[in-house]
């Protein structure tokens, strides 16, 4: 198999010191990997460097042609299928058991379910194996080629100039195996689908990324452009780790690019603090490369790098919005579990349970509620800590790279020209303690369609700092992306006119509450008329009305807060919009990224002399519009004029 061949060479061959990275990578891979002869003959394999590569091919021999993905994903997709089926199966088995008249019928039912499971898993295994066999990729002088498809053969060619970013993600299993899922993003959002290689060794992925960017630069830039500053002599591919310490982080032993991973200067020995421990764990996590991952160190210099301190990670975990999300998920899940469990409660036990619930004192309920809240706070904190553990953001060349995740790990990068806007977001708790999340909003593309549905988070883009001091957010960004410096200068935001407060209260306060009150009235009427629930009707209706009053208060407070927060500014090359009721988001949109702008006014707004302003950028999959309601009408008109390009100099040709 070809990847066996390429791996063998990749890990055993030590390129001569001082070789430029591009050549070194080429040298490390066999001819067909890059479609051109390797400039140096591979060295003899050293001891300890030979390692088994799983072989699924029946031929056993080395298949010719371009490399394949790592075969591990064939098994993984089968496992995922089993996981998906499992929940359904449990229910089915339970149903079969409860329906079955006697033991024999039950046995037959289970056999049928088992056969279905085996067939499904076999089909998935066969499908992924065929996908594996058909899926090949290579990089040539000018493009990345991907061949796939069983009935319809697909060939995708992506020229290097179109490649915008190459990102990896690794779930926990892949993490331990040292594999990643690699995604090549192209310019052009939804139209140009990217390419996904479902499983690849981490080292190979890194080498591929470096090589593609080197070739991209070569293809785009003038040939005279020298490969930047003189680089220290390092082979693009370090040797395979000695078997004694297979999980040694790359920073162990020698300094990592002469830079401590978190930019801390070496200090005299002192008792380890919590920070040190987190830093060490972060290093370990970042250094954990898994079983199959080859070692690789990229050779372009890191210009700026930062991580999170222990305190920041802890506070970020506690103050995150995830608590609420986990709570909602749990409510949904809990309700289903309850429904599911209630099927198995024997009829005799029901009165006992009902009695137990009835006898719960109010204090118990309060205690339970507080305990549940604390529990969700804890779960949310753990979830945030897991996803942002080992967080590192760095600037390398023309890209911002972010790695994060304690268990599953993401390696994402974004090319600077792809940044469309910057969002600085503060949840409720974070606003109170003065911290914010910084996100770069970028042009996203869909995953290519090979069965992998993209699980898109509700907001796209790249978080470059999950927990920065709100006052320093601009400074953090300025160091990471100096290109945005102009757009980040602190500016006096202009609030909305007074009339907007009235409109905000009506829109966010009165109208939704009227709607709730209408529903509550309907419920009250229905309950009082209903003969079944007449006993509990008083309790239920009073609860409903208490809830409606609480909502009224929340909505009114929110609408006032919205008006207080809403503000905007334009000028010196960017538009700034701040909005949000309890949470608050400040969005900075460079003027050159505004694809088109608009104002809109409905008849009510015309009477109040206000208008909405909007700026549409290419962020997200198709486009993202950033807008603000109820700006004073003449300011809105002035904003629209500001978005007009400056008149061309008089000497330019007239049309």
């Amino acid at each position: 198999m070809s990847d066996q061949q390429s791996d063998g060479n990749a890990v055993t061959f030590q390129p001569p010191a001082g070789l430029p990275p591009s050549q070194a990578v080429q040298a490390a891979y066999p001819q067909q990997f890059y479609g051109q002869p390797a400039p140096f003959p591979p060295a003899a394999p050293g001891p300890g460097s030979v390692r088994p590569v799983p072989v699924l091919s029946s031929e056993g021999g080395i298949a010719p042609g371009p490399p394949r993905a790592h075969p591990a994903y064939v098994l993984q997709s089968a496992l995922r299928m089993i996981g998906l089926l499992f929940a359904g199966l449990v229910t089915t088995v339970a149903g079969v058991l409860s329906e079955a008249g006697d033991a024999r019928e039950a046995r037959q039912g289970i056999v049928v379910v088992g056969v279905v499971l085996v067939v499904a898993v076999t089909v998935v295994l066969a499908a992924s194996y065929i996908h594996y066999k058909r899926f090949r990729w290579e990089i040539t002088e000018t493009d990345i080629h991907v061949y796939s498809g069983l009935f319809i053969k697909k060939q995708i060619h992506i020229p290097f100039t179109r490649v915008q970013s190459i990102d990896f993600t690794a779930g926990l299993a892949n993490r331990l195996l040292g594999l990643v899922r690699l995604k090549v993003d192209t310019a052009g959002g939804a139209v140009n689908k990217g390419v996904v290689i479902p499983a690849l060794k981490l080292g190979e992925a890194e080498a591929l990324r470096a090589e593609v960017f080197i070739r991209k630069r070569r293809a785009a830039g003038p040939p005279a452009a020298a490969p930047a500053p003189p680089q220290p002599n390092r082979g693009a591919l370090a040797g395979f780790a000695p078997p004694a310490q297979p999980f040694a982080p790359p920073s162990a032993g020698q300094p990592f690019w002469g830079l401590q991973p978190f930019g801390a200067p070496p200090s005299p020995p002192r008792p380890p603090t919590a920070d040190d421990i987190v830093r060490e764990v972060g290093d370990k996590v970042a250094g954990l490369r898994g079983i199959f991952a080859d070692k690789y160190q990229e050779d372009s210099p890191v210009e700026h790098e930062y991580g999170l301190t222990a305190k920041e990670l802890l506070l970020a975990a506690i103050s995150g919005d995830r608590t609420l999300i986990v709570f909602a998920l749990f409510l949904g899940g809990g309700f289903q579990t309850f429904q599911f469990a209630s099927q198995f409660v024997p009829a005799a036990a029901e009165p006992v349970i009902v009695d137990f619930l009835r006898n719960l004192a109010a204090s118990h309920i309060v205690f339970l509620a507080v305990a549940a809240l604390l529990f969700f706070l804890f779960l949310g904190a753990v979830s945030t800590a897991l996803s942002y553990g080992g967080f590192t953001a760095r600037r390398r060349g023309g890209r911002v790279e972010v790695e994060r995740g304690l268990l599953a790990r993401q390696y994402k990068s974004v090319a600077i020209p792809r940044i469309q806007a910057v969002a600085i977001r503060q949840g409720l708790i974070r606003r109170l303690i003065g911290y914010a999340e910084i996100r770069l909003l970028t042009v996203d593309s869909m995953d290519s369609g090979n069965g992998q549905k993209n699980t898109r988070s509700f907001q796209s883009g790249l978080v470059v700092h999950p927990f920065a001091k709100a006052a320093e957010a601009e400074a953090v960004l300025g160091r990471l992306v100096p290109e945005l410096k102009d757009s980040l200068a602190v500016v006096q935001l202009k609030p909305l006119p007074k009339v907007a407060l009235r409109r905000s209260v009506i829109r966010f306060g009165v109208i939704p509450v009227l709607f709730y009150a209408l529903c509550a009235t309907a419920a009250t009427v229905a309950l009082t008329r209903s003969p079944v629930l007449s006993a509990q009707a008083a309790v239920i209706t009073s609860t409903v009305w208490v809830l409606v009053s609480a909502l009224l208060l929340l909505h009114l407070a929110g609408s006032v807060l919205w008006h207080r927060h809403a503000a905007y500014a334009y000028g010196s090359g960017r538009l700034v919009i701040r909005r949000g009721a309890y949470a608050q988001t400040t969005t900075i949109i460079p003027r050159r990224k505004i694809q088109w702008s608009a104002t809109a006014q409905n008849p009510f707004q015309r009477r109040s002399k206000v208008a909405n302003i909007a700026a549409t950028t290419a962020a997200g999959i198709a486009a993202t519009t950033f807008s603000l309601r109820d700006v004073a009408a003449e300011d809105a008109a002035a904003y629209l004029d500001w978005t007009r390009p400056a008149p061309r100099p008089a000497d330019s040709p007239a049309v």
Partner: protein
Amino acid sequence: MAVLPTRKLDKRITRVWRVSAALNIFVWMSCALLALGLAVAGLDDEGVGSQSAKAVAMAAAVGVAVLTALLVVVFVGFVPAIRWLQWSFEVHDEEIDICKGIFWRKHLVIPLVRVQNVDTRQGPILRANGLASFTVATAAGEHAIPGLEVNEADALRDQVALLARLAQEDV
């Protein structure tokens, strides 16, 4: 203050809008009638008296007829004319202005630097009226100027293509 655009669409576009609105109403109402007919047929099967089933069918037919008449008066009678009054556009050297909308009055500014491609399109109704629509596409979506005389649309397309290229060179 923003200068409001002054160029108007060809008056014949109102005819196009009327026809397409009428077609839309026809299609939707046919679907509604079909669904209602099926539902009434279902009622008959469930042993409701044939008298009351007939009454329901009558009521449904009358309802659909009234709704259709209302929609026709509004969307074929009034809306196209008002929409034409509100529609205006202007092609400047550096940007395109579009004003439109009946309830929400929108004013769009599309800088020519951002224009990626331009084209003219013509559907059957537009062709029957000797019109074409002109579309500019940016990285964040398209904007159409729907009703222009064919030659005017072609001229506009060529003009905007040229202006967009000049604007690109300036960047």
